[in-house]
């Protein structure tokens, strides 16, 4: 298999890169300033692309790789892969569902707690020596708050299960109502936002869900409402988010993702009602290793003509 060309389009954990390098002829996109202009000799040997949340395979890349058979994403979100183009050309696409569900859901709750109970601010308060001058102020209780979830898939359901342990009533919005769900359904995101205290984005990023959190939703969530984003940065209209937070129209935000990572709007750093993370939703050794094994397993299955482990297309 050492002659099969695999193009790695994003920096991934060393274990994955090393294994890909061992098993295949590995090309790293950053060695070629413009991947679309990969020397044609290499372009025709590339049969697989490995990407992640930040880079995948758009139409231009797919067109530039005439022998491409499979795109294996080191992520569960595949918004950077042109799925339509892949379907059209019969290119398989795999992703990493399930193995990261727990970590992402844990982090979502961690963000809610950190935000409402000002955990990061309190930690700063102690480290700065300010505790010697007085107690920290009153924070907001988390238990019992209504949690609204956008997208009741694997991750959304895992978040709901955890929040329920804190006696949080759960409500949700999704493309279609889940008839067998015990949670309250709202037919629009604005209605969901109006009826919950904490709104979590847990759906895939598509054309329909781009900027699903817009000014109207933020206003509906309100000065005592909190936004948690563990989806994709582009779920949230960041240009509207910043003034909403600064003006107090939105109570606070816990963000693991941003529209243009690794760029974070500077204004957010001035605020004490935000928690900001560098896209660590699946960031544990256990989970990333399991994700890497899925990428490797899917590629191996494909090239051996066996059924894919976790196909999307």
């Amino acid at each position, binding site marked *: 298999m050492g002659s099969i060309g695999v193009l790695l389009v994003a920096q991934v954990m060393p274990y994955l890169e090393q294994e890909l390098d061992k098993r295949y002829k590995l090309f790293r996109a950053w060695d070629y300033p413009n991947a679309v202009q990969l020397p044609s000799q290499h372009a025709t040997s590339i049969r697989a692309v490995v990407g992640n949340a930040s880079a995948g395979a758009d139409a231009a890349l797919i067109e530039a790789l005439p022998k491409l058979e499979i795109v294996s994403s080191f992520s569960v979100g595949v918004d950077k892969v042109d799925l339509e183009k892949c379907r059209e050309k019969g290119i398989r696409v795999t992703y990493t569902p399930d193995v990261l569900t727990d970590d992402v859901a844990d982090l979502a709750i961690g963000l809610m707690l950190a935000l409402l*109970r000002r955990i990061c601010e309190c930690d700063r308060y102690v480290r700065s020596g300010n505790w010697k001058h007085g107690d920290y102020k009153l924070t907001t209780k988390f238990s019992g708050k209504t949690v609204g979830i956008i997208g009741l898939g694997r991750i959304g359901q895992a978040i709901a299960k955890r929040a329920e342990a804190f006696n949080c009533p759960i409500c949700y919005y999704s493309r279609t109502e889940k008839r067998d769900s015990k949670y309250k359904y709202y037919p629009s995101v604005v209605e969901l936002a109006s009826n919950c205290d904490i709104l979590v984005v847990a759906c895939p990023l598509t054309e329909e869900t781009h900027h699903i959190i817009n000014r109207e939703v933020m206003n509906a969530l309100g000065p005592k409402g909190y936004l948690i984003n563990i989806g994709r940065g582009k779920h949230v209209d960041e240009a509207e988010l910043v003034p909403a937070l600064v003006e107090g129209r939105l109570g606070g935000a816990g963000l693991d993702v941003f529209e243009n990572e690794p760029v974070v709007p500077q204004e957010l750093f001035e605020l004490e009602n935000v928690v900001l993370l560098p896209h660590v939703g699946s960031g544990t050794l256990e989970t990333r290793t399991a994700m890497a094994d899925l990428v490797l397993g899917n590629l191996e299955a494909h090239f051996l003509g066996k059924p894919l482990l976790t196909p999307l297309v």
Partner: protein
Amino acid sequence: MAEDEMKGLPKVLVLGPPLCFPSIQSLYSHKFHFLKPHLSDLSLQDFLHHHRPPSITAILCGANYSITAEVLHLLPSLRLLVTCSAGTNHVDLRECRRRGIQVASAGPLFSEDVADTAVALLIDGMRKISAADRWLRTQNLHNTPWDLFPFGSKLSGKQVGIVGLGSIGMEVAKRLECFGCIISYNSKHKKTRVSYPFYSSVIELATTCDVLVLCCELNEQTKHIINREVILALGKGGFIVNIGRGGLIDEKELVKCLMEGEIGGAGLDVFENEPHVPQELFEMNNVVLSPHSAAITKESFVNICELAGGNLEAFFSNKPLITPVMLPE
């Protein structure tokens, strides 16, 4: 309210004062005559000279004032102590029993908030939330690639040992179970209606678990219950959360073990000598620190004012206390 009107009201001596006292005062000043030595420069003894100690039958206090036998001795007619805390380690409970003084605490009022904080500190520590937020705010100016931030540790599926399975411990267990954590516990006595595995010693619990959450009260038996031996038994990947009392942990040893890498990390809301926190912890990225704020929410604040006032009212109307504390033999 005029002085002479106040004279008819039952006297309550306020010691501490508890954080919530200003609110309690505004809610209940028409029902009780609050005596406030904290506003005076006099010693407690001298302050009391002006107020006829035999006429004082109730104390309202916070966890920040030691109610010793000496303090109790100043009030020969004392019959009630209301503390605005769940913890009672600041009260000489034996002396209260000997004197026939009833004690009321916050009972289970703060248990949800405190359990929430325990889980918050645990997730933050394992997944490096505060460390990542801090990193982002300093590193982002240089547009450092985010994959340079180190991995956290998965929480789901970890073995969590709860030390003290009372009201708070049960709330912590209930929450962490839904994260897929495997719960076991150590407590003074095995709980009959609980299915979690029981360990009769903390060291056995620490040997089996990845995480310890301290939820027990501080007393003679539990002082420094977390010592070097227990910390080493928990091991290099282990994490300790303390939302009980600082005295439960041998703080010097904990700091040493953290510095030596003998333990993975810690989430601490309480310390042996608050508000002093060992400086060494400030340099560490594997600890999360909070200023004894586990119960300090707007909601709990409103609730404790109501509860403390309610206990005072019950006492002065000869009714049973709402949240009486069981006094030791």
